[in-house]
Structure formats: C-alpha cells, structure tokens
C-alpha cells in the first residue's frame, strides 16, 4: 500500500509537462501496472491449473456420464456408471481395500514419524548423519522398493517367511488374505514415507519457542507431558498438512500394490489388495471402458474429500484435548 502511494505522486507530477495525451497514456500504464500486472504475475499457476487441474476434472465428469469410445460413439447414459459402481461388489471391495490400507499404513507411519522427529530433535551424537539417514528411503525409486519388498514377502522363497520359520512361526501366504497383503503393502509405503514426514515434523519442532518448554519445566512437567501438551499442539498445522498429503497419497495408492501383484491390475486372486486406482486403470486400459473408469475416478475424488474432511475434524481436536 505504502509503495503504491509513493509511486502515484510521481506519475501525477509528470502530468503537466507531458500534456493531456501523454497523461492518458501514463494513466493507462499505471492502471496496467497496478491492476493488471499482479494478475499477470500470478496467472501462470492459474493457467496451468486450468489446463491440468480444472479441465481434466470437468472433462472426466463429462466422460463419466457417457458410454465413451475413443473415436466412435459417445452415448449419454446419465448416472448409469455410478449406479453400477455403487452396486458392484468388486468396486466396494476396492474401496474397502484402499481405506483399509490407508489406515494400516498412515496411522503408524505418522505416529512413528512424530516419535522419530522428537528423538532427532534431542542432542545426539551424529545428529546430522541420522537426520539425513531417515530421508534416504525417499530417494529410492518406488518401483525398486516395491520389487525388493515383493521378493522379501515371497511365500515359498521369501526372506521374511524364512525368518519366521527360523523362530518357529508358520510361514504366511502374504498374497492370499486381505490382512496379510495390506500389512505387506503398508510396510512398503511406511518404509518410504516415514522419514519424509519425520523431517517435516522436525523442522516444525525447531520453530517452537523454547520458552514454552522452560515454563513447563519450572511447573514440573515431565518430558512426556511436554511432548503431548506442548510439542504436539504446537505442531498442529504441520500435522494437518502431513495428514492431508498422506490422505491423498494413501487413497490413490497404485504402484506398490501393482508391483506386489507382479504388475497385474487384479490385485490378487479375489482382489484382496486391488485399490480404487488399480480398478480405474484396469477399466480403461484392459476393458476399454472409459466411462466406467471416469465414474470410478470421480467417486475416488469424492472419497478423498470426505476422508480429508474427516481427518481435519479429528486433527482439529488436538488443542481441545489439551
């Protein structure tokens, strides 16, 4: 505001010398400068968002209301695809799988990240090395991670079953049941993302004023009490951020279960670990059914919004709990 004021008198001062014509031009220029250029400067994001965000969203919605062939007939069918999906057992299974894996993966992941960040925030020997260490899984390609983990979770020749047998536990067929496959896939997700979240928490922790802790210590609070009553509430905005990011990532889970099932979209013999994302890709890639895939994509979008809102309400209670 103060900047605009400073600019304006100069322009006005130039007026008498320049004459009426010049003044209209400079007025136009100042209008562009003040009212248009800010929008131009922020426009790249909105233009890109319109092309790659808003348009695909709208177009997908349009496709989902049709029986859609790439170049052939596009017959309007209304909400038929949505009706089919809501009544379809396989699609419901994929929704349950996706939500299930999201919970199994995200809850321990964020709790672990919080503990990890708290530990890394203390004075430790080799702190920098440890802090970098938790980030290393992030640098590994998701497919490489999934391939290695898929071999570890082999039923007959996998290392985890071999270790289980060593300690006298029956080997587990990791791909046969929902529970086992969810745990296996969640472990891949957690291995990759726990460190990432821990570093974000750590950065936020270092911004918490030390005075709060000093006051708490004077009041006789234990370090456990400090963690739950100062650290966690102070981290609330950051926790909210990581929960949102994890929700979006978890509900669009694709690469890990795909590689776990040897690159097939079926997600196991009964779809035990088929996610909604896999169902969508299967619908248009294998079944050529673009309308159905688009409808499933929109349902996934709605699910993500609902889950994100629910998470927001849960996380928002943190301060009240104090």
């Amino acid at each position, binding site marked *: 505001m103060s900047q605009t004021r400073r600019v304006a008198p100069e322009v006005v001062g130039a007026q008498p010398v320049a004459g009426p014509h010049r003044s209209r031009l400079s007025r136009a220029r100042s209008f562009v400068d003040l009212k248009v250029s800010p929008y131009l400067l922020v426009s790249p994001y909105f233009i890109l968002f319109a092309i790659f965000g808003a348009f695909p969203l709208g177009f997908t919605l349009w496709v989902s209301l049709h029986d859609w062939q790439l*170049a052939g007939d596009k017959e309007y069918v209304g909400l038929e695809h949505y009706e089919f999906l809501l009544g379809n057992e396989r699609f419901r299974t994929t929704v349950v799988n996706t939500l299930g894996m999201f919970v199994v993966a995200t809850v321990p992941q964020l709790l672990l990240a919080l503990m990890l960040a708290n530990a890394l925030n203390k004075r430790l020997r080799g702190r920098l090395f440890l802090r970098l260490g938790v980030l290393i899984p992030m640098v590994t390609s998701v497919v490489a991670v999934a391939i290695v983990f898929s071999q570890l979770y082999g039923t007959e020749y996998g290392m985890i079953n071999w270790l289980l047998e060593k300690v006298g536990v029956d080997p587990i067929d990791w791909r046969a049941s929902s529970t086992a496959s969810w745990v296996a896939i969640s472990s891949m997700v957690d291995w990759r993302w726990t460190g990432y979240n821990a570093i974000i928490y750590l950065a936020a922790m270092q911004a918490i004023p030390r005075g709060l802790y000093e006051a708490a210590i004077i009041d006789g609070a234990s370090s456990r009490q400090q963690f739950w009553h100062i650290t966690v509430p102070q981290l609330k905005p950051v926790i909210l951020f990581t929960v949102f990011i994890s929700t979006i990532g978890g509900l669009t889970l694709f690469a890990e279960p795909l590689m776990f099932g040897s690159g097939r979209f079926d997600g196991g013999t009964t779809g035990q670990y088929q996610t909604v994302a896999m169902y969508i890709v299967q619908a248009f890639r294998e079944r050529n*059914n673009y309308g159905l895939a688009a409808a499933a994509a929109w349902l996934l979008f709605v699910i993500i919004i609902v889950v994100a809102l629910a998470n927001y309400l849960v996380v928002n209670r943190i301060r009240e709990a104090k």
Partner: protein
Amino acid sequence: MAGAAAIALLAAACGGDDDDGNGDSGSGSEAITLKVDVFGGSGFGYEELVKQYEQQNPNITVDYNIVTDDYDNEYRPQLIQQLDAGSGAADVVAIEEQGVGQMMSMSDAWVDLTEYGLDSRESDYPAWKWELGFTGDGKLAGLGTDVGGMAMCYRTDLFKQAGLPTGRDEVAAMWSDWEGFTDVAQQFIDSGVDAAFVDSPNQIYNIRMVQEAGNGDGLSYFDEDNNYILADSPAVQTAFDYVLELHEMGAIGPFQNWTDEWNVAMEAGGFATMGCPAWMAGVIESTSGKQNAGNWDIAPVPGVSGNWGGSWLAVPAQSEHPEEAAALADFLTTPDSQLAAYKAISVFPSSPEAQQDPAVAESTNPYFNDAPVGSIISDSITTFEPVYYGELHSAVRAAVEDVLYGVVEGTYASDEAWDAFVAAGQEVVDTSA
C-alpha cells in the same frame, strides 16, 4: 544415429524419384514409406527381410519398428487407441494371440486382404492359424507369422528322485493321455519328493480346455454371437474339474506365471513339470541358469496338441498405401520368410512347409539334453484344432485364471470355486465397454 537414418531415408527417396524420372517401371513406382510396427524383446526378426524387400522394391522404404516388449500393457492398448481414433497406426501391424479376438472384432479397422488376392495363402497355414486371421464378419485381416505350439518341460533330477523314468520317450508314453498324467502325478506325490508336480493350475487348465473345445464344438468362453457361455461349455467344465482333481491330490504348486516366486522355483526345483510353448525353452534356460543344464527335458503334452502364443500381421484400413502394405505383409509371412525369422531369432514358424525344413524339423536344444524340440512342437501344432476367441476372451481368461490360482492358494474352497469362476468372467463382461 538419427542423422544417418535421415540420410538413408533421403537417399532412398531420391532413388525413388530417379525411378519416376526413368518413366514406366510398372505400377506404384511412386516413392513411398511403409511403417511396420511389431513388439517383443527382439521383435519379429525382420531386419534382413526388410533390407531384402527394399532391394527388390526400390521405390519402397520400410520403416520397421519394435515398439515395446510389453504387448499386453503397452502395445495392445496403444494400437486399439490408434485404430479407434482412425490415425497413427502403422501400415502393417503385428497382433498377438492374446487379444486376436478383440482385434478381429474391430472389423472396420482392417483392410480385407482378399481384395489383394491373399486368400491364395490358405495352403501355407494349418487351418486354425488361418481361421483366426478372419474378422467376425468374414474379412481376411491377418496373415499368420509364428506360433508357440505346446510341449511339457520336466525336471529329470526330480523325476529321478521320485523313482520315475526320465527318458523323454518313456515319459511321453506314460502321459500319452490325461489319465496317464494323473497317474504320474500320483506316483510323484507318493514318492514324497519336496516339490510340486506342476508349477501352477493355469497352463494345465488351458491345454486341456483347448483340446476339449477343439475336439468338441470349438467354443470356450463366448459363442460366435459373443454371448458369454462359459458356464455351459463342456470343455471348460472338463478342464476345470481336472484341475480341481489334481489340486485335491496335492499336485499343483502355487507358482503364478511371471512372478518372482515362479522364477526362483524354476531354478531351485520347486516344481517338476510345466507347459512349454516353443519360446518357453529360452525362458527356462535363462531363468534356471547353467547349473541346471541337463536337468530339464521336454516331451509332448498329454493329448499332444496345444498352442500358446504366436502372431499375425494385419493392414489397418487407415493405411494410405493398402495395396503395397498388403504385398509387404504377404512377403513377410511367406514360408521362406518365416524360416528366415526362425533362423534370426528362433520364432517358431506357423507354416507346415517351413516347419518341415531341416533347419526347423531337425532342430534340437542342447540345454534340454538335445531334445528334438522342432518335431515335438510341430506335432502339437499340426494336430491343434481351432477354438473361437471372442472379443473379451483374453480379459476373461485372465480373470478366471485368478480363480484357479485362488483355489490353489486356498482363497476359495473347492465347492465354491465353480461359482466364483463363472462370476469372475461375468464381472469382465459387465465392466467392459
């Protein structure tokens, strides 16, 4: 590299122009480029044939592309999109068995090769290979290239441990029919050797099902009007029951094809037998490694006939030079060319004439104790009876095979498996456009 290719292209184009300048060098003397799209790790082995063709037809430049090695996930969806959109497809495209039904259901997308006199090629093929090249409404759209055939690979070391004969003639005699196969399985199980008898349920199921269908009405999952008839198909029922019988004996392993576990089991001796199309020999050799040389042998399958894999060349209707493209497809699929491709990269010829050539018929495989692979595979092809593949055949096949794996894995009890089997195929029908 790109520069060199561009220069070569220019030179070829100039050559064409010169021909034009010289006047009458027959029809089609205008310089044109024909694009050929194929798939596979080493493609179709056409490099030399393409050069030869360009020499014989100086006005034609052939742009031969190996698009990807992943047919099902990359090549097929891309080709379908190009055909559907009406542009972007090559002048000659390769189609694999996995999805030939889907391609042939898109009748409008293909040039009818009969228009260019290629119905004369019928005598070069076994009947089933020829017939699968026709669209639903009777256009000749595809000319066959290679085939997979079918044989049974088995581990001699495990057979020896189990006290079974290991010579391939004796083995073939023991399982000349499916009852014999069951008996061998039982003996193997009784011996207590720590390995599965068969790797997985799906190949046994498919070999049996296609034999039964070929000897019966020639139908499996769909009838010629594309109605879903899996539940009423006697061939499917017989093959399904047979797999269940083997499973209840404990003969079938859980090693799903193309998984890590399957690869490890192949090397470590986790199973004693597996279905073996011609191209599988190479897979076994590279997966099992040198240390297992001589541990694998190969014999005919029970009932002898079978096939897995093999391709066709077709000309999309969107091609600007359908006549020249048809002539090229014709050239690339002649018995001589099939032989040349076999010599280049060992793709097994579908033409009986090429199969009888000593280079194929007398070929043996040193890794498999010098087994006469050529004649074993030829026998499986010549006795093979055609089976109709509907548009959704390969998608249904993948879904119902999941149920078979589920039975072995214990996800389905045997008595609920059939209903799940029928329902899995129905799900594909319901969700396909």
